[in-house]
């Protein structure tokens, strides 16, 4: 299998006009005269799209072509206002590169990137709402796309999905795309061909277009693979064609026989000059590149005492990694921060279906809260209560601890008097403690600690409680 991913670049304006690229606007509210292909209008290349493409190229260590050329791909369709799409055929901006995948079994698998080129997105045809007519929304027309083409290196659905996930992480790290599949920011075409075991050559391929979720990709690949197997086993032939995945019927069906039907009459776009890229430009971008996911993962493992699993989760997005690092800087305990983010924060966010950037508790606040565990001002248990409160109120954790008087009880006199009270009130248990073996003593000690904590409203310093209890009980024996 080989993939073509169409990635919408997160530029503010379109690739060849000044219109906004924001998703979800009122139809045609973000389409100017250039997007509408009004007579005499001309494209002007958005340099941010160039920068993003180069960042991607550097991110996968690919060749950056010093000269790249826009071409016109000519075909008629209502959502293509000019009657041609501006794309890059012979001289793409990004040349060969490789993409490393970490698979579940800890192996590294290399995917060859054939090329990546810049082009403009088309608009959308809207078939509902209009009686016997179709509407056209050109808000998407001219949104910059980077089409990333791989070699036919994928041998399993698992590889495909893990490539797409890793790609998603990479581009969101780089900040060049929001990678949102549901909104179409990342769309995937899969080329599938079969190869008889023990032979070298691939069979005829089919291309499945525009599949917009991981689940549908898995289903489409599975359906298409079985379809091809059935045909070949029945002695039939695969037709080279473009197929569409229908998620409702869970099947692929023929869209058009591409090679026969369409002649795109590509030729160099005369309205745009070739793009010349200097070494200086590339090195400036290289210097401003954010840390990439794999580098970050290794650094986390080296710098912070966390497990590989922790590192995977904490580097799964740039926002999570940034959040984590801010918490660590504030509380100075990487392990504690890792645990809290995974067990408390991410769990809660998951439940409320929020992303980490929408978290009601900021990294700073969580860091401050955890710093109070670290310096033993409060216990982990109290911290959880505080967390729960500030999650809903947004309060400052330090003020809250102060206000509700949640500070741990460190005064040994105070603790001693509570311990004494507990010993007095539990004479039977004390008797039992004094007469039993080590094993049972441990259990009873736990009970006494629990009682003390309860009477102190959880504020007593557990270490001190343990110490004082043991001392008092040994006095008795």
């Amino acid at each position: 299998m080989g993939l073509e991913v169409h990635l919408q670049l997160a530029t503010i304006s379109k690739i060849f006009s000044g219109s906004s690229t924001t998703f979800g606007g009122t139809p045609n509210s973000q389409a100017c005269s250039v997007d509408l292909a009004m007579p005499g209008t001309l494209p002007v290349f958005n340099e941010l799209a160039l920068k993003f493409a180069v960042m991607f190229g550097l991110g996968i260590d690919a060749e950056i072509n010093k000269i790249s050329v826009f071409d016109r791909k000519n075909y008629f369709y209502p959502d293509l206002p000019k009657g041609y799409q501006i794309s890059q055929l012979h001289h793409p901006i990004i040349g060969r590169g490789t993409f490393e995948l970490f698979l579940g079994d800890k192996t590294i698998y290399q995917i060859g990137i054939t090329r990546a080129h810049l082009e403009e997105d088309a608009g959308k045809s809207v078939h509902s709402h209009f009686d016997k007519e179709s509407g056209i929304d050109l808000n998407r027309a001219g949104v910059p796309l980077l089409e990333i083409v791989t070699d036919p290196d994928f041998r399993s659905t698992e590889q495909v999905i893990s490539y797409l996930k890793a790609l998603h992480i990479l581009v969101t790290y780089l900040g060049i795309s929001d990678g949102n599949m549901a909104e179409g920011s990342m769309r995937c075409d899969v080329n599938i061909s079969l190869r008889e075991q023990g032979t070298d050559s691939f069979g005829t391929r089919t291309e499945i277009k525009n599949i917009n979720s991981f689940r549908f990709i898995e289903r489409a690949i599975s359906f298409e693979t079985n379809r091809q197997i059935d045909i070949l086993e029945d002695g039939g032939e695969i037709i080279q064609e473009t197929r569409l995945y229908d998620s409702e019927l869970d099947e692929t069906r023929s869209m058009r026989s591409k090679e026969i039907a369409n002649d795109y009459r590509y030729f160099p776009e005369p309205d745009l000059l070739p793009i010349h890229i200097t070494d200086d430009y590339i090195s400036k971008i290289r210097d401003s590149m954010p840390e990439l996911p794999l580098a970050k993962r290794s650094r986390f493992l080296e710098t912070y005492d966390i497990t590989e699993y922790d590192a995977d989760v904490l580097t799964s997005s740039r926002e999570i990694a940034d959040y984590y690092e801010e918490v660590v800087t504030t509380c100075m305990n990487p392990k504690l921060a890792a645990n809290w983010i995974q067990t408390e924060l991410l769990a809660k966010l998951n439940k409320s279906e929020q992303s980490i950037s929408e978290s009601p508790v900021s990294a700073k606040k969580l860091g401050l809260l955890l710093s109070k565990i670290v310096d033993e001002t409060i216990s982990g248990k109290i911290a959880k209560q505080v967390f729960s409160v500030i999650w809903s109120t947004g309060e400052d954790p330090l003020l809250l601890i102060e206000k509700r008087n949640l500070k741990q009880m460190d005064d040994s006199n105070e603790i001693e008097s509570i311990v004494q009270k507990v010993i007095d009130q539990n004479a039977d248990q004390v008797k039992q403690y004094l007469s039993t073996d080590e094993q049972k003593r441990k259990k009873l000690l736990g009970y006494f600690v629990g009682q003390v904590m309860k009477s102190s409203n959880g504020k007593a310093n557990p270490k001190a409680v343990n110490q004082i209890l043991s001392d008092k009980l040994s006095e008795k024996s």
Partner: protein
Amino acid sequence: MEIHSQSIAQLSAGLQRKDFSSEEVTRAFLDRINSLDHLYNAFITVNEEEAMSAATKADQRIASGTNEILTGIPIAHKDIFCSQGVKTSCGSRMLDNFIPPYNSTVIGNFNDSGAIILGKTNMDEFAMGGSTETSYYGPCYNPWNTNKVPGGSSGGSAAAIAASLTPGATGTDTGGSIRQPSSFCGITGLKPTYGRVSRFGMIAFASSLDQGGPMAKTAEDCAILLNVMSGNDPKDSTSADKEVEDFSANLSQKIDGLKIGITFHNDAKNLDSGYQNCLEKALNQLEKLGAKLVEISLPKNSLAVPTYYVIAPAEASSNLSRFDGVRYGYRCDNPENLHDLYTRSRSEGFGDEVKRRILTGTYALSAGYYDQYYGKAQKIRRLIRDEYLSCLKNVDVIAGPTTTGPAFDIGSKNDDSISMYLEDTYTVGANLAGLPAMSIPIGFVNDCPIGMQLIGRDFEESKLLNVAHQFQHATDWHLQFPIKKNNA
């Protein structure tokens, strides 16, 4: 001197001296259009009301002393330049209902300078033609002889100037569309270096060849117009990032010692003797002014017409895809489905010559033919440019005929596309090479004017205008006008 007989420079001086007001000047030209244009069909749209109210504003600006050289001067624009709120048809049924919500950069520049839009001039449909006969609005007629074509595609602009319906106009030149009608109508026209004038809002025919330029009675006026038209435009990526000099500054310079390359002896065999004679005299005149004539040869120029007729239609076939009946422009009645909408809107909206070029261009770009046609044409184009550049290392300017003869009869070439295309023999070279070129009147053949073409180095419009102005200083061919001649 009557208002309509004056050049832009003279009118501007008169406005400055308050000899007359912009309202009077504008009224005078509108009156001439209203009373005479039925003879020539030079205008598609006359902008009477807006022109008069712009004239009133111009007079206020003149009174307040904030006027520029073109403030209050009425001019006409080829109907290929988008004009906000004013129909821009490109000579086609396809855009008969099209009123742009924006100005082309060229028109915007003229408006800023305070120039007044008299109206939009007739042209070959989508600038495809050399006679202004393919216009949806009917042919335009040559004011020197209304049985003759005015040339094209900027024939309306050329005819309007020749008939003194406007003192100046804009045109566009993809393969000779400014120079050839200038030659046929006895006026002065300049195609600037590719990239000198913004193409934004100028409806595209062949993007890598199209260039807007000035047309007027004199080289001096062309310089004034070019000053306003030129300049880098962020809306056109192919517009040159080049500082714009004052094209009027060097007009009076002597051309003593200037080297002028001539291909006269090669070209002569294709020219009739009358044209040869005029050209010889014009070249002698340049010699008298101190220029040195140097014989040069441009053998590759013989490939220019076939090369042009591959590249221009190829680009046109793509540029005209946007006219699909979906968003603006002509839409067929009751389309049955999408395919029917496309097919009938385009079949009914485009004329024959446009269809012929779309078909030719589509063929030239088709899979399997690209290398043979478009690819090869691009290579030859490069060779043609190299040949011009190497000649222009040794000479300052190249001079020769603009056309193969004087204006031909209306209808005489309608059934012979090849013969029509060969009209472009001397002009397409400068488009393929991207070089500036102009045509100036040098005499008459059978009572019809003919021109001499001057081709210069990249961005050396100043030098061309200097040579042309010096020539016009010593001659009066540019002062001959049909009406005046008839009166005489």
